[in-house]
């Protein structure tokens, strides 16, 4: 963002602060002014496309969760990133942007599903990727990549097969397929095969 652009925004929206960014313009916005700010961006400043809604889990820090919004102006061809901290670290919530951008609907469902951020005012805040009864939010920092044991989504299938959702065997993974060499030798394999679930990971 050119200096003057932010100054212009700041002049009109005095609650904004500039956010460090390696690529596009970015601003911090308090969560309770988010809807108002985005409405103004859409109606007056030409940011007419909501590209993405996501969030960051800062782990031990507080505020722990930051909602991230990417807006695009299809007339000025400029992106704007908006970050809004969630005040509550335990039950994070943000106002829903569904009223401003219809595109926010599924994006917010996804962020709710994977990060556990509650969007107040969302018309249909259900999980979108994991199944409805799933008890965790898998993209949080404290959730292990391998997963946590829970019952299968369908009771009858679980009963007939005895299968459950088990933590995946990591065995030195994540598993990657190398692009080099003949196809017979490029099966996905762990980078570090010195340990398995049965054999302790060697300590240096």
């Amino acid at each position: 963002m050119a200096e003057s652009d932010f100054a212009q925004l700041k002049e009109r929206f005095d609650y904004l602060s500039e956010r460090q960014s390696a690529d596009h313009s970015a601003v911090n916005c308090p969560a309770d002014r988010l809807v108002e700010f985005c409405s103004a961006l859409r109606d007056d400043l030409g940011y007419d496309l909501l590209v993405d809604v996501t969030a960051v889990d800062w782990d031990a820090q507080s505020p722990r969760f930051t909602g991230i919004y990417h807006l695009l102006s299809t007339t000025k061809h400029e992106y704007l990133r908006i970050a809004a901290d969630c005040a509550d670290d335990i039950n994070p919530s943000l106002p829903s942007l569904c009223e401003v951008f219809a595109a926010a609907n599924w994006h917010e469902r996804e962020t709710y599903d994977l990060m556990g951020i509650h969007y107040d005012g969302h018309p249909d805040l259900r999980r979108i990727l994991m199944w409805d009864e799933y008890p965790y939010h898998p993209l949080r920092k404290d959730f292990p990549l391998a997963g946590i044991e829970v019952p299968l989504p369908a009771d009858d299938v679980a009963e007939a097969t005895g299968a459950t959702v088990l933590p995946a065997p990591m065995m030195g993974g994540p598993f990657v397929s190398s692009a080099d060499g003949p196809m017979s030798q490029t099966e996905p394999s762990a980078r570090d095969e010195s340990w398995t679930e049965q054999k302790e990971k060697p300590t240096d």
Partner: protein
Amino acid sequence: MQNTNVAYDSKVEGEIIVTQADAVINWIRKHSVWPMPMGLACCAIELMAAGASRFDISRFGMEVMRFSPRQADCMIVSGTVTYKMAEVIRRIYEQMAEPKWVVAMGACASTGGMYRSYATLQGVDRIIPVDVYVSGCPPRPEALLDAMIKLQDKIGRERSVKNLTARNAKPAKAENLALAGAGKES
């Protein structure tokens, strides 16, 4: 091709062929496999290639791909099976008429492949019994054809009559199967 299960001499037997029921049933079954493409990820693209003219799965008598489980007898699970999809696969498998077979195509369907994560079923054999596993990520169409030919061999060795009578004697839930992977150590 010499079929050792059939002893036939036209001068002696005329228009009668003497053979075993198993041999006839298996011969019919293995040359009319109707696959159901359970395409879930990139393996399904290779599966489509196997069905197209260059690789031409119909050379081996299994070109009749049916997208309805009720009209198919071989499910080709091609792709990553998520836990959310596992239920669907199991239900579709249950809707297929007996006898039925399953091919786990590729690393993901066989073992979860590179998706060692909270969302991915670590091998479709945890929910349905698998007959043939195909390695590869994704396997080339030739690998799938090889697997299908192996499946034909397997069908050819089945005790079909015995299986049929056993199934009729105990119709419901004949197989609460010894699932290969159900109790698998993670």
